[in-house]
């Protein structure tokens, strides 16, 4: 076994390692963010994997300065699209027959059964994004505004309304 020389890193190899580092460092946190935004694990996995695929392509195209910010933005956008698609599907799809769930699915279902996840599903998407980014991802309001493409004032409004609504929903459920 030998230690690779860091002096002459091959670009592709270096990029590959950095991408792996990006995955290892942030995949799980982004997955959790996506779960809070879309409300279930399989859809969140799809969202985050798609985001990573896109960031891989774009980074190699040389247009991304901050891959993490780009990833987070992509996750939020894809989660938004997923929720929109799901609403359309729910409106038009017939009720599916229940299947026997695996143990893993049972664990995922447990996540979906969390009161706070259910409450988050019942508030508007913008409010959900704002409150999750503020109180779970711990981002400052200015950064949330940038991510959501709105003003800081709008973010404050979303958070305030979300907190009132969540307080009500969580009180109801308890």
């Amino acid at each position, binding site marked *: *076994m*030998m*230690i*690779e020389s*860091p002096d002459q890193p091959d*670009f592709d*190899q*270096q*990029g*590959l*390692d*950095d*991408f*792996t*580092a*990006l*995955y*290892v*460092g*942030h*995949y*799980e946190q982004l*997955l*959790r963010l996506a*779960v*809070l935004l879309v409300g279930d*694990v399989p859809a*969140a*996995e799809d969202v985050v*994997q*798609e985001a*990573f*695929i896109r960031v*891989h*392509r774009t*980074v*190699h*195209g*040389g247009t*991304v*300065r*901050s*891959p*993490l910010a780009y990833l987070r933005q992509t996750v939020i956008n894809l989660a938004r699209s997923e929720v929109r698609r799901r609403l359309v599907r729910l409106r038009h799809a017939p009720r599916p027959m229940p299947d026997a769930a695996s143990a893993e699915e049972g*664990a995922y279902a*447990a*996540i979906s059964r*969390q*009161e*706070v996840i259910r409450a988050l599903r019942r508030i508007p998407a913008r409010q959900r994004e704002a*409150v*999750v980014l503020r*109180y*779970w991802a711990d981002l400052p309001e200015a950064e949330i505004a940038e991510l959501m493409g709105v003003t800081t004032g709008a973010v404050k409004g979303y958070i305030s309304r979300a*907190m*009132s609504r*969540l*307080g009500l929903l*969580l*009180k109801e459920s308890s």
Partner: protein
Amino acid sequence: MTPPLSPERLTRLLDDAVRPVTARPGALDRIREGTRRRRPPRRAGVVALAGAVIAVGTITALAITTAGGPTRIASPPASAPVFSSAAKAALPAGQTRTAAQPTVDQQAVPTVAPSAQPSFAGTAPSSASQPVLAPPGASASSSASQPVRAAPGPSASSPAPSSVPSSAPPSASSSAPPPASSSAPPSASSSAPPSANRPAAAVPSVAGPVAWAVDGPGQPAASVTLAPVGNARTTFSFLLVVHTARSGTQTIPFSATSATDMPPLGPVVVGAANAAKDGHTELFVLVDTGCCTEFWTIFRLVNGHIAQVKLAGAPVRLAVGGSVTDNGGFSCAGPNLVTYTYAHQAASGTRETFLATRDTYRWAGASLLLVSQRKTTIRGAQNPELAQYSGVSCGALPQYVLKR
């Protein structure tokens, strides 16, 4: 009137809700597969396309100019434009070009300067900056047996989750780099070493790349990194990330017994050796430490997939080293893996007795199967026979990583 939901309570609820969510094994592989499927078009193709567009425009302009009047719009000539000087030279001798047969040689095609290659350097740490430590006491004279640290788990401000007692040899801790903070902001620890000043967004735990000849002799070596899963300060779950030329990147989850049983700075790649004598080297990783004994696990290639070797259904833990009362080691000199241990049994009169065990295991895919077991009672702590039941004899693997 509804009592307002406090931010602290909401944060706690959100944290609790998503805590069980973890990355599925193979997620990275699926992402890589996705990136391979959607590879962007080659740059050369883009350049050729741009050249073709410019060439068509040039030809059209030439045709309009030579047609003799601005009111006549000429269509491109029927003959295809010649793009290269080589094709130009291929014209029949004596044939001259007319305005209707313009040439567009390479000079007409704009050259595209190679763009600067992107780098993650600003946001993710370069793997080259990760610590690579030689064992304090191991007789590792070449890089072949230099262990590579995996996860500087504990933060600089919190005590390291270490099981090494205060009586441990000072060399075990003094030569190790100070643990890096994974969560403190850069300004939070001005007295901390440079490695502790990484921003929280960085990945402090990916070890430097290690080349592992997993594909066999003559094949390109695979690069290996170890990384923590989840919070680097508290986790004892890790990923072995192996990038091979043959089968792409594989991630193999593994874990230490607990955070307190781990080596002070997380698992350590000890080295690789052709233990099974099949030409594909096995990778040895230190995962647990007791007061005096190290526990190594093994990864090997099985049917194109890298797997953690199991023994009796559980990940293998080879005991290496120990104290005067207990010791262990192994040998891969033959086709089988032979483990040795001895343990203090009793003291009868002035003589101590030790129970020495020699287990022989056969390699069977990702498992080790017990072939034979021999137990011997050895009398006397100074009995030279005891020495046969300790130490590592397997390629260039060191005797110990953290101790001695």
